[in-house]
C-alpha cells in the first residue's frame, strides 16, 4: 500500500468521525424527543414536537453562564469533560463505518472508560456545591455504575471470545462477515445483559426516571440541578449522546447490516440512513417498554443489575461451550 493511499484513508477516517459526531449531536436529542413523543402518544397526549430537545438546547445556549456562589473550580470544567469524553467515544466508534479515525484503538474497554470518565466527572460536579441533592444523586449514580460495570465488562468478554478481539470495528466487521454469529446463543445472552446495563447507565426507566424531579427518586437530575445556560446545554447534549452512542453500539454489534465497510460516499450515506433507522426502532421499543414499566425501588436495582451480570456470565460460558 503506497503512502498516498494511506493518507487518503486517514483523511476519510477523520471525515467519517466528523460525520458521526455531527449526526449524534443533532440526532441524539431528536431521539430523546422521539421517545417523549412516543410516550405521550401512547398515554393519549399530543406531546411536544420531536425537535423540542433541540429547541431547548438552542434556548439554553443563548443564556448567560451562572455558577453557584460556593462552587469550586471543578464545577465549570465538568460540562466540558462530560461532553468531550462522549464526543471522543462517538468519533472512534464504528457507527456508520467500520473504519472511522483511530479505529484501531477503538477498543471496547477504551470506549467504556471514556463513558466512565464522563460519569465520574458528573458525580464530582454533583458533589462540588455541597448541596444535599447533588451529593445524593452522585452517590446513587456511582452505586449503580459500580454494579453495572462488572456486567458490562463480562458481556464484552463474551463478544470478544467470539470475534477473537476486543476491538469494536473488528467485532462489527466479523459479524458482517459471519451472519450466523448474530443468532448464536452467547450473542443473545450478551444482548440481554448489555440492554440492562444500557438502561442503567443512561438513567432510563426502570432504574431512573428522566422526566421527574421528585427528590426521593431522582438520580441523574439531582446531579445536574446546579447547572444553568450553556453548561446545562453541554451536560444535556452529553447525556443524550451517551444514550445515542450506547444504543447505536448495541445496534451495530448485534445487527451490523448497513454499516459502511468502504470509503465511498454512497456506502457512508447508506450507513448513515441504516444507523438512523436502527436507532429509531430501538428508541421506539425503549419508549414503549418505559410506558409499561414502573420505576424500580432503589433497593431493587441491584437485583436487576445482578440479573444482567448472570446473563453476561452465562454468555461467556455458552460461548466457551459452543466454540
Amino acid at each position, binding site marked *: 500500500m503506497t503512502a498516498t493511499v494511506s493518507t487518503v484513508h486517514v483523511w476519510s477516517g477523520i471525515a467519517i468521525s466528523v460525520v458521526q459526531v455531527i449526526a449524534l449531536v443533532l440526532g441524539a436529542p431528536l431521539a430523546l424527543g422521539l421517545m417523549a413523543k412516543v410516550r405521550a402518544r401512547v398515554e393519549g397526549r399530543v406531546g411536544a414536537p420531536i425537535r423540542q430537545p433541540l429547541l431547548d438546547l438552542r434556548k439554553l445556549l443563548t443564556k448567560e453562564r451562572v455558577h453557584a456562589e460556593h462552587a469550586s473550580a471543578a464545577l465549570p470544567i465538568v460540562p466540558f469533560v462530560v461532553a468531550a469524553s462522549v464526543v471522543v467515544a462517538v468519533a472512534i466508534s464504528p457507527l456508520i463505518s467500520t473504519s472511522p479515525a483511530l479505529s484501531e484503538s477503538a477498543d471496547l474497554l477504551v470506549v467504556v472508560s471514556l463513558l466512565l470518565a464522563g460519569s465520574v466527572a458528573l458525580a464530582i460536579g454533583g458533589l462540588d456545591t455541597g448541596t444535599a441533592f447533588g451529593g445524593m444523586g452522585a452517590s446513587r449514580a456511582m452505586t449503580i455504575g459500580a454494579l453495572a460495570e462488572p456486567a458490562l465488562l463480562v458481556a464484552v468478554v463474551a463478544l470478544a471470545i467470539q470475534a477473537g478481539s476486543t476491538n469494536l470495528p473488528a467485532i462489527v466487521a466479523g459479524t458482517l462477515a459471519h451472519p*450466523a454469529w448474530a*443468532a*448464536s*446463543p452467547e450473542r*443473545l*445472552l450478551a444482548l440481554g445483559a448489555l440492554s440492562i446495563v444500557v438502561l442503567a447507565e443512561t438513567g432510563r426507566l426502570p432504574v431512573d426516571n428522566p422526566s421527574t424531579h421528585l427528590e426521593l427518586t431522582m438520580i441523574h437530575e439531582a446531579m445536574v440541578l446546579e447547572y444553568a445556560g450553556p453548561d446545562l446545554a453541554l451536560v444535556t447534549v452529553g447525556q443524550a449522546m451517551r444514550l445515542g452512542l450506547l444504543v447505536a453500539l448495541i445496534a451495530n454489534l448485534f445487527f451490523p447490516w448497513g454499516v459502511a465497510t468502504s470509503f465511498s460516499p454512497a456506502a457512508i450515506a447508506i450507513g448513515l440512513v441504516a444507523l438512523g433507522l436502527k436507532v429509531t426502532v430501538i428508541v421506539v421499543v425503549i419508549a414503549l417498554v418505559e410506558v409499561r414499566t414502573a420505576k424500580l425501588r432503589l433497593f431493587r436495582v*441491584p*437485583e436487576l*443489575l*445482578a*440479573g444482567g*451480570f*448472570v*446473563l453476561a*456470565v*452465562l454468555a461467556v*460460558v*455458552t460461548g*466457551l*461451550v*459452543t466454540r
Partner: protein
Amino acid sequence: MTLYLEVLEIAAGAVLVCAVVTLWRRDVRAIVTILAVQGVCLGIVAGDLAIHQRDLALGATALLVLAAKGLVVPLLLRRVLRKDPRSRETTPLVNIPASLVAAAALIVLSYVVSSKIIALDPSPATRLVPLGVATVLVGYFLLVTRQRTVSQIVGLLVVDNGIALVTFLVTSGVPLIVELGASLDVLLVVVVLQVLATSLGSRFGSFELDELTELHD
C-alpha cells in the same frame, strides 16, 4: 446440519436461562410461567435431536415432555396458586442479588466440572452438557433457599428438567418407557403437592413450610 446445531444450542441455553430467571423473579405466578417455557425448550431440544437422528421413539418422548412439562405440570401448579393468594411473594433465605451471584458461580463450576465428561466423547451435543449440569445446580439452589411450597416444587422440577437435558444431550434420550415413568413420577409429585397444599391451607391458612415445626396427631 447447522440449523440443527443452532436450534439445539439456543434451546439448551434457554433451559438454563429459564432456571436463572426462576431465581430472579419474586412473583411465584411468573416463576410457574417460566417453568412452562423451560419445559417447552426442553421439548424442543428432544424434538431437534429426534429429527436429526430420525428416531421415532425420541420424537414421542419429545411430545411427552412438551405435554407434561410444558402444559400439564404448570397448569396443576397454577391451580394450587389460585387457592393461596399469599404465595405470590417468595421470601428467599438468601437475598436475590446474592443468589444470582451464586448462580453465576454455579454455572462456572459446572463448566469446569463437565469438561471431564465431555472429553469422553466430544460431539456437538455433548459439548452442551455444562448447560444441563448448571440447570441442575441452580434448581437445587432454588430448592434449598426458598420457603414457599410452590417455589420449592418449582426447584425440584427445575432439577428434573436439568437431569432430562443432560440425558438427552449425552445419550440422545433414555428408552421411552423410562421417560414415561419419570414423567409420571413428576406428575405424581405435583398431584401430591396439590393435595398437601390444599390440606395445609385449610388447616393453617398458610403454605409456609417453616411453620411445620410441631407434630400433631
